[in-house]
């Protein structure tokens, strides 16, 4: 077989000239197995894009908490004193039904809030890595500003691979809540 394929996919090459990954259509750097690589900013400080999507994910027909996005967090991407910043955008019916929006890291709730008459909802959620835990604004909140609860501290080891999930839980199965998109960034000193 003598098939040749000319690709316009940009490949990532290490200092030895070996192809170690590629850049996908969403500008996410991945290794040859398709796993997102640590943003360049993670090693040198700055802001790196970990994941982003504009493909809408809708939930209806159930009142069980439902995953709308699952984002792998490679080991060490969020370094000590680093920050994970998540910006989802949801659309929901404007009615009295109270829907619950959550972000979980390693299955543990990092952020949760319940809103009625929300229409659209786009919190900015930040979690700070102390080296041994992820610390975020406490209690039910909008992700920024004040809260009546002390900060939430999650015992999540960010030196190991973890996952971030974005979920919605309907109050009424007849409703529909749509995650219109999200951005996940890493900020390291």
């Amino acid at each position, binding site marked *: 077989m003598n098939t040749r394929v000319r690709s316009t996919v940009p490949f990532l090459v290490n200092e030895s000239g070996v192809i170690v990954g590629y850049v996908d259509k969403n500008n996410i750097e991945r290794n040859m197995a398709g796993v997102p690589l640590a943003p360049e900013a993670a090693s040198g400080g700055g802001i790196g894009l970990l994941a982003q999507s504009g493909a809408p*994910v809708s939930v209806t*027909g*159930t009142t*069980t908490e439902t995953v709308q996005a699952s984002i792998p967090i490679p080991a060490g991407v969020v370094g000590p004193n680093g920050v994970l910043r998540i910006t989802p955008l*949801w659309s929901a019916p404007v009615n009295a039904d109270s829907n619950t929006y959550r972000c979980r890291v390693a*299955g543990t709730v990092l952020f949760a809030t319940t809103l009625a008459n929300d229409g659209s909802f786009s919190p900015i959620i930040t979690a700070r890595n102390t080296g041994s835990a992820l610390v975020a604004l406490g209690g039910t909140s909008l992700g920024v500003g004040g809260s009546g609860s002390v900060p939430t501290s999650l015992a999540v080891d960010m030196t190991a691979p973890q996952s971030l999930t974005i979920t919605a839980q309907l109050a009424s199965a007849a409703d529909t809540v*749509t995650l219109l998109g999200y951005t996940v960034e890493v900020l390291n000193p």
Partner: protein
Amino acid sequence: MITIPIINVGTADEPINAPADPLPANAIAVLCDGTNYIIYQPGDTVPAPQGS
């Protein structure tokens, strides 16, 4: 258009619906109807946006 069944990744007391397989990277829209994740891919007709 493809469908991926739901599995429970939570507990019996606190269930969490999740797709049994990862959502394809080329999905242009997804609808979870409480039983399956319906994945719309390039070339599929995407349903009108809902939730408002």
